[in-house]
């Protein structure tokens, strides 16, 4: 009952000075709004990246040349590790945990059709690639084993390439030139859209791996190998199998590091999101500073308030208020101030997050834990920064205070 009355008394004095109270808590509002918005957008974009990487292909394993440990022992002076077609065959054959494997031979090229031309990513892959990477065919078909065997000059185009070279037409069956070599278009991929990392997934052309390797490249360099594990539960075994097979193929002795990097989706996700997370945390720290400044603002105004109400406090003490009553009243006032700032900050932050999310096309995830944490934080700020002024008020001498003008 008494607490309720103290709250009413505190509310009354805050409402008496609406403008001043609002300006006081501005720091808290900005601090909390920033943290809420940043974390919501950060989590949202992480979720975007995660879902996109997941859509790249479930149980995806990426193998590329290079050493995982930067300060590991290299495999000998001057040796640059190479992946080969043999490696792809070995992986497919000798691991029961791998469902498919495909080489990736990158031969970015100019593509010409009639008068139009377009520079695009051209990649040599085998017939399993669409299954590993979840690509669907919209028109025509993907290449088959025969195309691989014969190093056929056939190509499957992504939607962006089709829009550039054959706007509004069905290009299946037409002829194009890739690096001046004549190719026949046999299929068009379904649209995939833009990745969260900014690149256009439809700006792509697939040709058979052997065609890329022997007709357009040096005949032996495989840039990457993409494989998919049979299931998520055997992911670790699959990676171990690959490491073992490649070490054998590349004749790496025991004690020397792997000459390839084998990464699965989770690692890729964490690598990519690490930057986002660090950025989010850094910016949140800055927002935290704003919160601190907000707290100092509250303390400042409470001190002013105590001085302004010296006579009033003296009267209350004369009427029988104990020092703990006065302390509680001013603490409650400080907490109500900071809490209002916190709630307004949370609402503002959520609005900003959704607004910005709309604009930049990012998902927004509001974590209830963050909201509870923010509320707890603002209450703590109120108590911490309100204590000193409240204590000053509580121990005023009533006789002197009532004489104060």
């Amino acid at each position, binding site marked *: 009952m008494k607490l309720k009355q103290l709250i009413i*008394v505190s509310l009354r004095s805050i409402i008496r000075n609406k403008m001043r109270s609002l300006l006081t808590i501005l720091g808290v509002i900005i601090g909390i709004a920033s943290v809420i918005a940043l974390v919501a957008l950060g989590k949202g974009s992480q979720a975007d990246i995660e879902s996109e990487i997941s859509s790249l292909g479930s149980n995806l394993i990426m193998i590329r040349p290079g050493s995982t440990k930067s300060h590991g022992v290299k495999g000998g002076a001057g040796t640059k590790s190479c992946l080969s077609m043999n490696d792809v065959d070995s992986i497919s054959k000798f691991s029961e945990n791998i469902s498919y494997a495909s080489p990736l031979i990158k031969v970015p090229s100019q593509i010409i059709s009639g008068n139009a031309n377009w520079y695009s990513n051209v990649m040599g892959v085998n017939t399993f690639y669409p299954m590993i990477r979840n690509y669907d065919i919209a028109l025509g078909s993907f290449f088959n084993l025969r195309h691989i065997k014969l190093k056929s000059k056939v190509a499957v185009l992504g939607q962006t390439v089709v829009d550039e070279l054959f706007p509004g037409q069905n290009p299946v069956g037409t002829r194009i030139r890739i690096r001046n070599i004549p190719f026949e278009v046999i299929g068009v991929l379904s649209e995939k859209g833009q990745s969260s990392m900014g690149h256009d997934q439809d700006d792509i052309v697939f040709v058979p791996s052997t065609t890329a390797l022997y007709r357009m490249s040096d005949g032996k360099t495989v840039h990457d190998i993409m494989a998919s594990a049979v299931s998520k539960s055997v992911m670790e075994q699959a990676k171990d199998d690959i490491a073992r097979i490649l070490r054998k193929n590349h004749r790496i002795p025991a004690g020397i590091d792997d000459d390839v990097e084998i990464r699965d989706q989770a690692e890729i996700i964490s690598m990519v999101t690490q930057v986002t997370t660090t950025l989010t945390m850094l910016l949140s720290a800055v927002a935290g500073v704003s919160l601190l400044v907000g707290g100092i603002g509250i303390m400042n105004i409470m001190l002013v308030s105590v001085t302004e109400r010296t006579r009033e406090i003296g*009267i209350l003490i*004369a*009427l*029988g*208020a104990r*020092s703990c009553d006065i302390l509680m009243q001013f603490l409650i006032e400080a907490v109500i101030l900071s809490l209002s700032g916190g709630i307004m900050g949370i609402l503002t932050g959520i609005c900003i997050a959704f607004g910005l999310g709309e604009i930049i096309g990012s998902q927004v995830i509001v974590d209830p834990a963050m909201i509870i944490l923010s509320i707890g934080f603002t209450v703590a700020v109120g108590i911490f920064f309100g204590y000193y002024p409240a204590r000053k008020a509580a121990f005023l001498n009533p006789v002197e205070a009532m004489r104060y003008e």
Partner: protein
Amino acid sequence: MKTIQLSNIKKTFHLGGETVKALDGISLTVNTGEFLAVIGTSGSGKSTLMNILGCLDQADSGEYYLEGVKVNQLNMNALADIRNQKIGFVFQGFNLLPRTTALENVQLPLIYNRGKKINNPTQKAKKVLDMVGLSNRINHEPNQLSGGQQQRVAIARALVTDPSIILADEPSGNLDSRTTDEILFLFQKLNDKGITIILVTHELDVAEHAKRVIDIKDGRIRRDYEISHRRYITA
């Protein structure tokens, strides 16, 4: 019943290197239902005496018994409770909370009341406001009330916890003579009901509305006498 008993109360202030003996051995007994005026010039010690009687300040030496309880050695919280429950203050400057209604002002002591629980504070506040004749002004704020009306609100506030004594420090100092009479009439009425009143003033004709006068000079009681021809105000 002895409401107040002071024995050899002394109080000294140290102000900027100088020592001021505000009270130099005051002994005083006040019974229930008395109407006492304390008169003295500025610097005589009357305000200090008032503050000590009201438990707003404590004597350096001597004893103060309020309704049989030795008050001068109590801690801060106990003194606060006594101020709340046993003493009602009326000040020269009214000392009402600004931007707060008369009703809210009068209810203030009840917020801090830790003694006998009062069931309906709003009701009680309205009742004492009625006693001072302000039933039709309970929602007015101090800046909407005249000086006399503000002082009446202050008196109602002093009465709301049913205190043993009312201490009034120059209650009519800021009022014109007609309003002064209204206020003194009110005190007289309350005293007729049996409430003990101690009034501090520097004006003799105000003091003569009381039944007994204490004359203070240089921190000591110079004279303590009953008024023979009391100025009694008839309605």
